[in-house]
């Protein structure tokens, strides 16, 4: 791994996002819309439910923000790749001395940058508009963020691999893949209230542990650290598997001679 190469690739996105303010809007606009919808819903529920649940209902906002962290990490990887496809630049990168690991690392970093932008905006707005302070999660925020980021990277590599496999026609997968799993990772409701058959499925995704943990922390101020350890271990499994899938499909694409076709279409 060559840090200089990774930095060069990240610099490209910094140029891109600072040159085109519209890209920043995309990173801020959709999360804000989401936040307003969930925030207003929360206010409505708060006013019309019992005192106890009314306080707890704020978890909807926390869930929405944490979901967005996951989504942005995934987007960093998938959209960075698509950006190269759209601009017909993929070949320039692949004929440059860029290792696949360096390319992926750069997309991971772009994910981190995206998280920072949306995280700060959502954190501020939810606090100012809905009196939801993300920091009520205190230090738990750190493992939550890290776990969601790692899982986002895995989902990003999976999305990219699928797009490589099925070509540009499948590019909407870049946005769809996280939503395939949204219903089962217990973002807005506890696993215990999900249909019994789907509960084992829920526990097979690291994100589930974070959303469960968030609700625990908001209600009781703490959570079982064993769950977090499980999340980290699961994340490592996903990272290795997703990375292997990506490398395998990239190799297949080279073998079939589709990389160039893909990149110049």
């Amino acid at each position: 791994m060559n840090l200089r190469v990774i930095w060069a690739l990240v610099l490209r996105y910094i140029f891109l996002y600072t040159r085109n303010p519209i890209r920043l809007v995309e990173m801020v606009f959709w999360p804000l819309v989401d936040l307003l919808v969930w925030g207003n819903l929360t206010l409505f529920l708060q006013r019309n439910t019992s005192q106890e649940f009314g306080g707890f209902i704020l978890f909807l906002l926390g869930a929405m923000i944490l979901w967005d962290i996951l989504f942005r990490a995934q987007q960093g990887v998938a959209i960075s790749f698509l950006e190269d496809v759209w601009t017909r630049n993929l070949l320039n990168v692949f004929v440059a001395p860029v290792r696949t690991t360096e390319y992926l690392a750069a997309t991971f970093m772009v994910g981190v940058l995206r998280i920072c932008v949306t995280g700060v905006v959502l954190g501020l707005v939810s606090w100012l508009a809905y009196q939801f302070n993300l920091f009520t999660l205190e230090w738990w925020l750190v493992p939550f963020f890290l776990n969601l980021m790692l899982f986002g990277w895995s989902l990003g590599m999976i999305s990219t691999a699928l797009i490589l496999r099925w070509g540009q026609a499948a590019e909407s997968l870049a946005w769809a893949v996280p939503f395939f799993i949204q219903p089962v990772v217990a973002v807005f409701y506890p696993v215990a209230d999900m249909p019994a058959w789907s509960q084992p499925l829920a526990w097979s995704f690291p994100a589930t542990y974070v959303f469960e943990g968030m609700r625990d922390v908001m209600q009781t101020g703490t959570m079982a650290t064993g769950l977090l350890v499980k999340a980290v271990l699961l994340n490592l499994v996903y990272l290795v598997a997703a990375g292997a899938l990506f490398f395998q499909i990239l190799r297949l694409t080279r073998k079939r001679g589709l990389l160039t076709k893909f990149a110049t279409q």
Partner: protein
Amino acid sequence: MSDPDPREVILEARDLTREFDGVKALDRLSLRLHRGEILGLLGANGAGKTTAMNCMLGLTLPTSGQLSAFGKPLHKHRIEILQRANFSSAYVSLPGNLKVWQNLVVFAKIYGVRDAKRKIAGLLDLLEIAHLADRVTGQLSAGESTRVNLCKAFLNDPELLMLDEPTASLDPDIADKVRKVVRRVQAERGIGILYTSHNMRDIEEVCDRVIFLHKGRIVAEGTPDQIVQKFAENSLEDVFIKIARSGDIEE
């Protein structure tokens, strides 16, 4: 294979074959490119020129055959080889949503170019496009973006340069400029260039030696003059037409 050219071989293909769905786009292609030489790959559309180049860049894996550059097998030393090589094609562009200088800075960093600012300024001057530095890449004309692509291709002072139809879609004036720059840089730095084209003018003016491809096979090899003589035609263009229309020609 005895090689009359004493210069170092910097790129070598041996029996390079590439099939797509059972059809051979390249059929046992063997070639050597020497340091300081411009080797033209000439052939009709679909002859296999781009496929050959893509294999040599490691973008496409060959079905069979060996590839090496600087004496090292490509599949094992790809990154190291790519660090000393570069590529430009009429069909590949730099990100259109960045400014020209931003694109060049990014690639200068990727290749680890020292004193990148001066290097970029020098190349922009050489290609007579210094005034484009602050322009958005996607808004350039074909001729302008070809020259920006060439800037990128010269950034790392490559010892091996692959140019895939660099003059495609250029008007005669700009095409002429591009040929002259390629010639000049090649003469100054002694790089080896693999140059594909279906444009006779390109081949005659730029290449020291030509390989004529037809349906993935070499049908003739030599200097442009030698090839014209061999086929008893008046010009390279006549040879081209003869080969393109005659179906399969055996050596």
